[in-house]
Every structure is written in C-alpha cells, then in structure tokens.
C-alpha cells in the first residue's frame, strides 16, 4: 500500500469519524428515550460508522487515479497571508466597525496578491465600501454595526 496525501486525508477522516462516533455515544438522552427505537444519538452513531467505513475503504483499497500535487507549484505564502488577513478582518469587524475594517481588508488583500496600482487600490477600497454601505444601510435599510462612524457622527 502506497502512502500518499489522499491516504493521509482519509486517515484523518477516519480519526474524525471515530471521534464523532465516541462523541455521539456521549450524547445525553432522556431516560425514557434511552431504549427507544430512535433517539437523538441514533443517526449520529450510524454516521460515525459510515464515515469510518468509507474512509477505511479509501485507506485500504489502492488508488484508481492517484493525484499528484506538486507543492512547489502552490502559492502557499499568498494564500496564508490572505487567510491571516481574513482572520484579522473577522476579529476587527465588530469592534472597529464595518467601514474601516472592510476597506483595510481590501487594501491589504489587493496588495498581498500583487497589485501595486495605488489609484485602483484606493478606488476599490474606501469609496467602494462607502457606496456599498450606503446601498445597504441607506437604501435597503440593512443594519450595519459601525462604532467608529457612529462615534464621529456619520452613522446614526
């Protein structure tokens, strides 16, 4: 049996299914429901077994079409930077407010992906977000939490 990335993913899925099955068994059901033909843990238990069955088969059986992904051809740096930017965006959107956090997220994302034309970076960030906010908040009356704009008196 050749070990490849698909087999490793299948093994991880097998472990996840085993953990899921264990957690399913820990679900506390009502005493009168314990011996019922179907209770809150019946379906998850079947799912846990199904997950282990399919991932087990994938681990054991030979690969029909082995996938070759060359890590040297993948752009890890850009992807990680982008994911990190999203996490920071997600963490700040409520505290800093929609306008500033979204505009900065867009500026950094454009930059990390290789864009260097600052004219377009600026146009497609701050003014773009302002128009988007106006459409949502002003026209469609969708609530947008923005403590910063509220503080400086732009938003009610």
């Amino acid at each position: 049996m050749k070990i490849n990335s698909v087999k490793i993913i299948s093994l991880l899925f097998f472990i996840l299914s085993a953990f899921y099955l264990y957690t399913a068994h820990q679900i506390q059901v009502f005493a009168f429901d314990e011996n019922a033909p179907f209770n809150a843990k019946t379906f998850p238990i079947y799912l846990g077994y199904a997950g282990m069955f399919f991932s087990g088969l994938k681990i054991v059986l030979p690969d029909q079409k082995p996938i070759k992904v060359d890590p040297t051809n993948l752009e890890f740096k850009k992807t990680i930077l982008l994911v990190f930017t999203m996490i920071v965006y997600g963490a700040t959107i409520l505290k800093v407010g929609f306008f500033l956090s979204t505009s900065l997220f867009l500026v950094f994302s454009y930059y990390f992906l290789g864009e260097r034309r600052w004219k377009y970076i600026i146009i497609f960030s701050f003014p773009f977000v302002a128009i988007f906010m106006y459409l949502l908040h002003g026209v469609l009356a969708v609530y947008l939490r923005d403590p910063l704009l509220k503080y400086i008196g732009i938003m009610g």
Partner: protein
Amino acid sequence: MIEGILIGLKTALSFQNLMMVMIGCFAGTIIGMLPGLGPMTAIALMIPITYGFDPATGLILMAGVYYGAVFGGSTSSILINAPGVPGTVATAFDGYPMAQQGKAGKALAIAAYSSFAGGTISAIFLLIAAPSLSKVSLSFRSPDYFGLMILGLTAVAAFSSKGNFLKAMMMCVLGLMLASVGQDTLSDIPRFTFNTMNLSDGISFVLVVMATFAMSEALTIIIKGNDPSKAAKQISLTDLGSIKVNKEETKQMAATIPRSSILGFIIGVLPGAGATIASFLAYGMERNFVKNEEKEKFGKGSVQGLSAPETANNAACSGSFVPLLTLGIPGSGTTAVMLGALLGFGIQPGPRLYETNPDIFWSVIMSMYIGMVVLLILNLPLIPYIARILAVPRTFLIPMILFFSVTGIYLMSFNNFDIFLMIGIAVVATILRLYDFPMPPLILAFVLGGLMEENLRRSLLISDGSWSFLWNRPLTVCIMIAILLIVCWQIYTSIKSKK
C-alpha cells in the same frame, strides 16, 4: 393548471420580480463567466440578499442567477476555452475553434439561441411534468423518502466525481455530520456543540455554502496560481465578429435542438446527473445523428456540435427542478443550494408545495421562461461588453469574492465566531479540493441531513426499530434496487478500469 399558470404569470410579471429575473440573469452571467466560479457560487453569493425579499421573489432571483451562470459559463468556454462551469466543457469543443476562426460572435449567438430553445422547451416539459409528478409523489411515505435521499446522495456521489466514488461518499458523510451539529429537532438535546452557545442553533447553511464554494473557489485560484484573466488577454474581446446566423446554420440548429432538449430534460430529472452529463451525452448523440461529412467538422467548429451541448445543459437545468419542486429532494448541488435557501424562508418544497404555495410553485416555473427571454434579449447584444469582465485581474476579483462572502455571513449573524468557522471550513475545503474531493455531495448531504434523520426516525418508529421498512413497500424496494445498481456499477467500473 391554467389557473396556476395565470397565478404564476401574475407573480412573475410583477415589476419587482421582472427586475429580479433581469438582475439575476445579468449577475449570473457575469459570475458564471469567470472561470472557476459556477452557478453554485453565484447562488451562494446571492442568498443573503434574497432573505430581504419574499420567498417567490428570492427564488425567482436565484433561478435567474442559475440560468445566467450557465450562459456565462458558455461565454468563457467559447471565448477563452476556459469553461466557467463543468456543464459547458462540451461547449468549448466546437465553440472555441469557431472563435479561433474569427466567428466568436456567431458562436455566442448559436449558444444563446440554443440555450433559449433548450430552456424554453424544457420549461414547457416542466410545466406538464411537475404537477403530475406532485400528485404521484403524494403517495410517498417516510421509508420511500429516506430511500430517495440515499439514492440522491449515492447518485450525486457516483456521477459528480468519476472514479472518486469513495471520496464523494466521504464528503456525503461529512456533510451529514456538519448537519447534525446543534440541537436535536425533536428532543432539543444539544449534539456536538462542545458547550458553546454559538453552535447550539447548528451551523448555518449559508455559511457552509459560502465556505465550500465562494471562499474555497477563491482560495483555490490563489493557491494554484491560476489567473483567469491571462487567457482573456490573448484574444480580442472588443471585436467578436457578427452575431448573425445564416439560413443553413438555422436549419442545422432546428434539427439538433428538439432531440437535445428532450435528452437534456430527462437527464436533468435524474438525481445526480445534471447539466454536465447531459451536455456530453447530447454532443455524443449528435455526432451519431449527423451525416459523415458533418461528423468530420466536429471538434473543428461545427454548428451542431456547439448547439447540442448548449441546448442540453439548459434543458437539464429546468429538468433538475422537477425532483426539487415535486419531491423536495434536490437532484444536483445547485438545486440543493436552492432547497437550503427555501428552507431558510420557512418553505418545505415537496408534493404539497403545489397546493400550499401555488404562487411560488408556478411563479418559479413561469420565471424560467421569462429568464430565457431576458437572457436572449438582454445578454446577446451586451455580450461584447460583458465579455470584458473576463479581463478583470485576480488581484481585484479574489478580494471581492472574499469580501462578499464574509459580509454575507456578518450581515446574517453579527458574530465573529461564524466568520472564523467559515474561514476554517473554507481552508479545509480548499485542501480537499486540491486532492479532488468533490464539494457538491457535501452540500447536498448537508441540506438533506435534517430531512433524512426525520424520515429515518419516522420509519424506525413505525417499524418498531426494525430495518424491514426498507423492503416492506414495493416502491421502497425499487428505490433500494436502484441504489444497489449504482453501487454495483461503481464497483464494476473500478474493477474494469484496473484491468
């Protein structure tokens, strides 16, 4: 039925709904045109917007986006040989060579006319088939529904990923696992919430769709280093040539369209098959139907070679609405997304939808026809301008997709946890995509999870815990045989391919 059609027409032709069809078709065309972003991504991005409307309007918008995205996919297939959606891969076989011969405008026009004809003919089929099937499906019981859902998942797993049946089944189980998070619907007992309130309501459907499609599509484009706009820069998007189709070509299309429409509709109705299989089958069938001299032109810019897959993929789109509207069971990933959105509106599609919400049932069917007309008269003249979107660099495109995804979730919950969960699921989905783990089975399973558990619960309670409900009714037996046949076929093909 006439009364229903009139109700549907009245709803679909209201100013707001007409606008929604137009916006949907237009937005769908633009998103579908971008390689890598298909109808599922387009619809996923629209879901948060649709929650601001009534269900009929929301569904009409999504149907418009669906058709628009399929049409947009054909445009990128023809112009840059990069199909926006799998259903338009066969379109590139003859569409791209035609564009290389300087007849890009003509190829786009043939694709538009064929899509219109295929979509219209199958909308008529849907008009006839859906009410009749609704009546038949009233006789379905819980075991039949449970069996049908297993059949749907197995079929999608079998067809959506050729040679990756086990991977697809693993994705089905993962989708069902994600659906099981949160309180049990009957007893309210928390499951897999790990004592956090953020998970007690379960994982939002929009979150999962956005993460596995919009966001992970964007991350996949970045990690693979693809730049969809590079191919667009190699051709002239400003001079596409004439869009006029001559008599001879019209005659050829007239012969192709009816047979491809029928084939496309039938394939679309089958669970799991959908537009991709329909377009390939139609292409193959057409090649067998034409004369030998025309056969030689296939792959080199044949009118019939382009018309057949384009007709069939649009016909299959309408066909895929049949199981959704009549049984409440989606036959494809895209209709699964629509089912999820409908459930979000508090509407349960199924045989009773025809009686309980006739305005939704009929207006969706009527809006399909209107959508076809809109696509033809709005998009065809605008194609030279819309095509320039293909040249939007990924440096702007990707952050915009990520922004719309995060904003969509933020507007729904105002909760950081949901954003982090979405990013986490998107990262996992991106890794899985790299190794060819298909996402449509995951979404279908996630949407069907709750319904499946409910029907299994009823079936097991009725049969007092015995699994004999799987062979007690002839209909359930037929469904189980179909499932077995699909599984056996998968085993047979895998053994055959090894030899």
